[in-house]
């Protein structure tokens, strides 16, 4: 995607994406990563996701709890809070406006106006 850094675009949107995943269902780090990749965000980085989860937790948008696992170390699950839901709603609005405007600009059918 020349001219538009996809990873930069993603970094700005990652908070919203992570909140959306946890809003669906509580998840631990790798779980969130899998679901994001499954949704089509192939270039999302592991470290970015884990770090974002921590930051959102520190900001009060997520809660966390430990779940012991028989296969390995205990996993930290994250769940969305009310504050997180508010943040998610805002991210949805901002994204809507942004993608509409940008979509109109990039739309092949609409002639470019110089």
């Amino acid at each position, binding site marked *: 995607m020349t001219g538009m850094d996809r990873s*930069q*675009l993603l*970094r*700005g*949107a*990652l*908070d*919203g994406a992570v909140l959306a995943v946890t809003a669906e269902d509580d998840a*631990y*780090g*790798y779980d969130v*990563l899998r679901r994001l990749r499954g949704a089509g965000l192939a270039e999302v*980085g*592991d*470290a*970015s*996701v*884990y*770090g*974002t*989860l*921590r*930051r959102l937790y*520190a900001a009060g948008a997520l809660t966390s709890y430990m779940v012991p*696992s028989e*296969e*390995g*170390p*205990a*996993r*930290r699950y994250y769940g969305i809070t009310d504050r997180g839901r508010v943040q998610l709603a805002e*991210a949805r609005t*901002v*994204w809507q*406006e*942004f993608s509409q*405007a*940008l979509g109109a*600009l990039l739309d092949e059918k609409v*002639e*470019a*106006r*110089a």
Partner: protein
Amino acid sequence: MTTSTIPEDVRAYLDAVRAGLGDLPSHERDDVMTDVEASVLESAEDSDVPVALRLGPPGRFAAELRAAAGLPPRADDAAAPEPVRPSLRELATRFTIAPWLRELAPLWWVARAVIVLGILAEATGTFDGNGNLPGEETRLLLPVAVVVSVALGLLRHRWRALVVALNVVCAIAAFPVGYGIAKNIREGDAFSSTQRGGAYAGAARSAPVPAAVRERRARAVALEAARRSRAENASRSRARTRAKKGRDAPRSTERRNRP
């Protein structure tokens, strides 16, 4: 899970990441690594790709982790600056253009055609001695310029950078050209030919009122004065006639002369 079941390369990788967080307080470091270790282990089980290849150098992984977590970068790590993370709102503001501005685009296409003609007239000065476009040429060139400008605006083309530059130039020239046009409209006919003394606006140079225009005005003033004095004389002579004839003047004339 005991340490022996963790693959050697994953163990080494995780140790390196932990080292990358070495400047953090130990409880925070342990906290972060709890998440990371469990997730990295599981991801390693799902993939055949060696962990260092899949996740990148552990130093970079640690730096990305810190940045995403909102932690400050390592004080001694000048090679890995914190990546800029624009918020979604910042990105949205950067890319959104107010829709009503796009509605005004056609107005601008016409305006820039006029401005370009104004610039041309001023720059070439070959249309007539005063550097103004005579009326006939204007009538021909203006529609052509407008059509070209609208085409540039409407059609997709590869000269977008050029047109943007043109827009900037026209925006700057808009004020002198607009001033020149307004001046010429005030002083005379903006679009008539030079023979009749009018002039299409050139540019910032404030042209003296053309001699022909002054002549015409003087003539018009003189004509008006002559007409008025004739009318006065006529009414005065009628009044004298009435006085001479006294009350014998026909009533119909009187009625006609009354306001």
